[in-house]
């Protein structure tokens, strides 16, 4: 489950090419000479999909072995290139987070951007690294995972408690036998004692 790239674009409602505002790409798994072309390609696809995403809509496009998820909110469009295994819901929650973060950091300045902005935004790079695991991005997924682990642990606990119950049962048997035997012993001692008092 891998995120290959995260991009923030400014989409114009008139349908012209979107302006790239921030990008973070992880092309390490491509060969060295292919990396730049892959980056270009990613930009191109991002622009196209961004053009096609109407404002206020979420969209997912399957492209070869990638899924491109895009979320356009009031002209600010966030896109993620993920592989097929990445859960879609987590990807959209991640996009939401990135969008909020961008708006917090840059306010409304992006609206006036006309040229592609190639300055790296460290948050985006961090996000790319951190959110390779979908559970990080999607709290629901994280919670579900933890709950499942807890359930497994509880099952083991119940099994061991059952074993403990069995042992306690055998112990109670033995202790009742012991007390019966000690009672017999006491009676026997009393009986043998009685015969000596006369002597």
């Amino acid at each position, binding site marked *: 489950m891998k995120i290959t790239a995260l991009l923030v674009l400014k989409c114009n409602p008139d349908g012209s090419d979107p302006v790239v505002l921030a990008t973070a790409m992880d092309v390490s798994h491509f060969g060295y000479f292919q990396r730049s072309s892959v980056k270009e390609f990613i930009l191109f696809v991002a622009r196209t999909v961004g053009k*096609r*995403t109407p404002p206020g809509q979420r969209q997912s*496009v399957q492209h070869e072995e990638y899924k491109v998820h895009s979320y356009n909110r009031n002209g600010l469009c966030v896109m993620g290139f993920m592989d097929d295994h990445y859960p879609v819901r987590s990807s959209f929650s991640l996009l939401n987070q990135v969008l909020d973060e961008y708006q917090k950091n840059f306010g409304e300045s992006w609206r006036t951007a006309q040229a592609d902005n190639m300055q790296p935004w460290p948050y985006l790079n961090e996000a790319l690294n951190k959110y390779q695991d979908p559970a990080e991005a999607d709290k629901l997924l994280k919670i579900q995972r933890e709950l499942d682990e807890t*359930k497994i642990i*509880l099952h083991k606990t119940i099994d061991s408690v059952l074993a403990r119950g069995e042992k306690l049962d055998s112990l109670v048997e033995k202790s*009742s036998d012991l007390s019966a035997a000690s009672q017999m*012993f006491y009676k026997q*001692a009393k009986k043998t004692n009685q015969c000596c*008092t006369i002597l």
Partner: protein
Amino acid sequence: MMKLGPSSYRDRTQEFLSVVERLKKSVASANNAPSSSGSSNSSRAVTKPEDRKFAVAIQSEFNKRASKIGYGIHQTSQKLAKLAKLAKRTSVFDDPTFEIQELTAVIKQDITALNSAVVDLQLLCNSQNESGNISSDTTSHSTTVVDNLKNRLMGTTKEFKEVLTMRTENLKVHENRRQLFSSNASKESTNPFVRQRPLATRLDGGASTASPPPWANGSASSSRLFPSKQADGESLPLLQQQQGQQQQQMVPLQDSYMHSRAEALHNVESTIHELGNIFTQLATMVSQQGEIAIRIDENMDDTLANVEGAQSQLVSKHINENRVHSDSDSYNLDCAYKQSKLMIWHTTIVTA
């Protein structure tokens, strides 16, 4: 038990009238001799046939009405059987609502009319019984007839109500099924529901033809993708035009983002619920085992007391024996004494 229909009773009116004629003649001839009682007799005799004719007329009126009511009830119950069949037969898509409603209205009208007719009949019967000088057989007969008709009408009304309740239940079940199908179309990956998907997603022309094959191929549950309905329809052909070399394919969009989130939340909630259950069971089991542990503790205390008592006995006996008996016995006692001391030591360790 009186049968329904116009021919359910034997109409002996004609016989009766002929008998009356005969009697009139015989009474008239008998009345010629005694003159004093003749007039009264004749008048009585005259009134009697008239009365009898009047009574007969009333009785036949009663019978006619009763037979009409009985026939009406029979027809209504037949219509009711038809309605019941229609209501049972109704399915999700092919609901003969209009017919059912018509039939229901007709049956209701019939029942109300029959009800009023029975009430009238009862009034007539009562007035008859009070006024005329008719025999007790006739009165009992008429009251029985009226009661019978009333019971039949009540039975028909009850059946009508049952049919209506059954129909409302069926309608509810169909509504539920319809909702199930329309909202959960994405979850069903089996074939029968592929047909329903075009209805649920409502894609327009160009994209809809491309949609069924990708649906069949796409992974249903893991890829929850998002609809943007018109956008898909436009973007797909445009993208295909622009990037002819690259193969782009719109993965079918089945559920919305919000649906998947809602479902995830539901799952989380149910998981937490299960965990609560598990904890409760765990607590029950541990408390039960605690009870067992207490019992063990008591048993050990008993054992300790017994062994201590036995030891004290043996001590006193040992002292006695040391004065009196041989060595073998005292050796046995010695061993018993030491063993009991050991037992006490062990028991105190365990209970502590």
